[in-house]
């Protein structure tokens, strides 16, 4: 129907036009929500139509405009980005269904602004996924930051605005303060910022500057939440749960680790980077982040904050996998992006459902809630198992690949970290699940409640199912992602 480059353009235009449509339909909630859903479905269909092309080895391109001499706004779809875009656009449908339930069930204000910003954030995610060079990626990265600010600050009270300030401050600060100079530095070295298989920096920079540049990238991409720039993610939890679910478990944070993986693979080039000793730095940082965040998560009682710290750890899995720089682990990185996405969105959906139904946010008050909300808590358990990495969930698969990479590299630090964090994950998830199903209710809810509104339940069950499906049907995805190693 459309050419491939038109499809790329469309995947930006659809959410953009959708945002306008939502703004115009703001006065009629039903029309507005219809527009949102339609946009989401159209976007997903559009993005998914590219899947076969990319799978077959095609790399659709779109050259938009020369922004600076030699630097253009250009798009190029490759397996990593394809996966990210397909994931984000697909989950947007589910999330929209869920949002409708959540926002109405909670009687939130400013719903139009919410949906408009959401659509723009999705457009930014698509832009990041398909970007053909670092400049384009950076542009959409910033659009994503700015467009999610109103979502985080949604409630508008003093505490929320303060948290949103932290969110904005860290993300903009790291990107402008570190990522931008890293980019300009790269540009002045290589004369280009195009994502090129095999990298563009080979032989153009030497130690110890490689280490410095690497760190500038690793911390410049604040969205990857490596410690110590992780604070924005817990701060973002003041947002409504659908935002935490899609953006701060999928789109935004995945954009971060996605960017880091892309930088490793297409800017540095894994062979070149592997030859430089300083790539170990990133491994250490990632391991450190995994362990420390798990310990912090252990001490959290607010469910969403707990999930946030879990996310920080899981993101570092991806960074760790990418920085091991072995074929298996690179595939593992992309697989884990996907597995974690399904699992974490389920967890957030469940947390939101609990909040809407019972207004509870603290896990100490949630004993016995599994009896009132069996579907929700069942889905939650699936998500948690995936986080721990137990079969039959997606988390098992991706962890398997990562472990494989670590073994190829004889990287015992990574192995030890993976094992330790699995235990820690289990330590903070399993007691809560047991308590939810097996214990008596300790805090009576204000009103007698059952499950949350049906759209939410449908959504969270779907994503829980997807976690299973990923376990069963992961092979095509692994094949697709193996293509990123081709030069």
């Amino acid at each position, binding site marked *: 129907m459309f050419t491939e480059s038109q499809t790329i353009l469309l995947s930006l235009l659809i959410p953009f036009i959708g945002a306008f449509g939502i703004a115009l339909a703001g006065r009629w909630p039903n029309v507005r929500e219809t527009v949102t859903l339609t946009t989401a479905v159209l976007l997903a269909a559009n993005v998914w139509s590219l899947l076969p092309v990319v799978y077959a080895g095609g790399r659709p391109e779109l050259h938009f*405009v*020369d*922004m*600076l*001499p030699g630097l253009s*706004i250009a798009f190029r779809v490759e397996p990593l980005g394809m996966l990210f875009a397909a994931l984000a656009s697909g989950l947007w449908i589910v999330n929209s269904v869920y949002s409708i339930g959540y926002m109405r069930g909670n009687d939130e204000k400013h719903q139009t602004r919410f949906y408009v910003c959401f659509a723009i954030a999705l457009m930014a995610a698509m832009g990041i996924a398909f970007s053909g060079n670092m*400049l384009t990626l*950076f*542009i959409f990265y*910033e*659009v994503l930051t*700015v467009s999610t600010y*109103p979502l985080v*600050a949604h409630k*508008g009270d003093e505490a929320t*605005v303060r948290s949103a*300030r932290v969110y*904005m*401050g860290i993300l*903009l*600060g790291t990107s*402008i*303060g570190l990522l*931008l*100079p890293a980019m*300009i*530095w790269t*540009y*002045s070295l290589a004369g280009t910022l195009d994502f090129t298989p095999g990298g563009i920096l080979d032989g153009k920079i030497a130690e110890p500057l490689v280490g410095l540049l690497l760190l500038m990238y690793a911390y410049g991409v604040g969205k990857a939440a490596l410690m110590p720039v992780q604070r924005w993610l817990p701060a973002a939890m003041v947002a409504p749960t659908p935002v935490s679910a899609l953006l701060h478990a999928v789109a935004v944070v995945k954009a971060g680790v996605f960017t880091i993986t892309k930088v490793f693979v297409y800017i540095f080039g894994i062979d070149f980077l592997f030859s430089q000793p300083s790539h170990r730095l990133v491994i250490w940082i990632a391991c450190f982040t995994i362990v420390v965040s798990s310990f912090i998560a252990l001490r959290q009682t607010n469910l969403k904050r707990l999930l946030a710290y879990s996310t920080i750890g899981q993101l570092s899995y991806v960074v760790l996998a990418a920085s091991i720089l072995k074929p298996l682990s690179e595939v593992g990185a992309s697989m884990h992006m996907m597995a974690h996405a399904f699992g974490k969105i389920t967890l957030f959906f469940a947390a939101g459902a609990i909040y809407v139904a019972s207004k509870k946010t603290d896990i100490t008050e949630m004993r016995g809630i599994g009896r009132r909300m069996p579907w929700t808590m069942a889905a939650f358990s699936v998500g948690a198992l995936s986080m721990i990495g137990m079969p039959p969930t997606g988390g098992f698969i991706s962890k398997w690949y990562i472990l494989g990479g670590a073994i190829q590299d004889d990287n015992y630090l990574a192995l030890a970290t993976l094992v330790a964090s699995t235990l820690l994950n289990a330590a903070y998830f399993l007691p809560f699940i047991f308590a939810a199903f097996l214990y008596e209710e300790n805090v009576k809810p204000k009103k007698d409640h059952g499950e949350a509104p049906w759209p939410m339940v449908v959504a969270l069950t779907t994503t829980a199912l997807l976690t299973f499906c990923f376990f069963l049907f992961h092979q095509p995805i692994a094949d697709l992602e193996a293509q990123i190693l081709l030069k």
Partner: protein
Amino acid sequence: MTLYDQLPALLIAVPLFTAPIAYLLRAHGLPWAAATAAVVMTFIISCSIAATVIGGETIVYEMGGWPAPYGIVLHIDALSALLAMLVTGSSAAALIFGAKSLADEVGEEIAPSFFAAWILCTAGLTGMVVTGDAFNIFVFMEISSLSTYILVSAGPDRRALVATYRYIVMGTIGATFYLIGVGFLYMSTGTLNTMDLAARLGDVTELRPVLVAAGFITVGLALKAAIFPLHSWMPNAYTFAPNVVTVFIAAASAKVSLYVMMRIDYAIFYKNIPNHELQLALLLAPMAILALFAGSMLAIYERNLKRLLAYSSVAQVGYIALGIAMSSVAGLTGAIVHMFNHGVIKGGMFMAVACLALRYRSVNIANLAGAGRAMPWTMAAFVIGGLGLIGVPLTPGFISKWYLVLGALEQGGFGAFLVMVILASSLLAVIYVWKVIEVAYFKEPRANAAPIEGEAPLVMLIPTWIVVLTGIWLGINSYVPVTLATLGAETLLGAR
């Protein structure tokens, strides 16, 4: 001589010819119409000149038919064409935008002098940009300054008068410094033509007067350009001038002084004074770095929106000065592009402020709570401008910062420090821009606040958005300014 050959002279002649007419028009609205017609005409002329010089050629027009160095010549290359577009364009945009707002702020009685002064201010700034004669720059500098004093003093608050007085004193000192510098140059070379000066300075053996001339000219222009710490006149002049006047002078007037500084320091002194780039860097770089921090910090603590933007201009002028201090093609390109881009950004932002002031009758940030909902289009324009100040990609601010950082990276070890300074100041910009956004979007208006009439009238909104969209366009495709600026930077450094 075809009309086409006469374009450079017409650039000046059209406004000079119109100003006395505008002064005599006493009917309602006519002075405005005359001014707009003249300024739009000059904008068209400068665009067609820019189209000619973008290929890299230089236009020389001999005033009165007398060749240089005996007569005065106009000398237009890529750089001057870019600045001429900025001056005439911002002037035209502000006038069109201000049709309603000015009728509101400027009394009927002074309208003829006000608009005649506006035309002459445009002519003066354009004249400074296109002339090739050092003394002629002084004459047109005075035309632009004196008319700016009139424009500023038309502000409604009595503090406008004090601001004007300070501006007069500082502006005159700056201009006189420049005149002293030109005097010493004349003493050493016997000529006033810039090209001839550049050629003859090479033979001068007694360098002291030349060196001192360079100092006087640079400091005098720094005073007129409000480079920190010589900025004291500027915040109040911007704050208390009529809103539309602020749009124009914030966009154009300081830039022209910076342009002249570049012209004289590079085209004349750079090749002829040994180590001039070092002297320039030692003078300008500390001022620029201080400006970046002090301007941003002052903006962060400011409660008046117009003054906040004025302090932000202090910081932004710091960027330009920093680029000038780098003496490299990338640095100068960054400085030149930023002159242009900052003009577009700040112009758009002050337009948004004028819209807000029209409805809220106040520019105190605290009073603007809820403006995001009451005036969504105006605030959106403001936000986009603010993102430009921060240097977020897709805004013109990003392009200029790109070049500045590129230039800084070429400076080696000290360059890394400069990169940090540039980026740190961008982050400070986040704070002061966000401060406004938070109030406008996330604060509920006070219960006893008067209800707002709603969005600004379309006659104001449309020009504002044209400027904002121009900004976005320049952020996406900056071919024209970047090409002209690179050409200009190469010419200044003698690379071509």
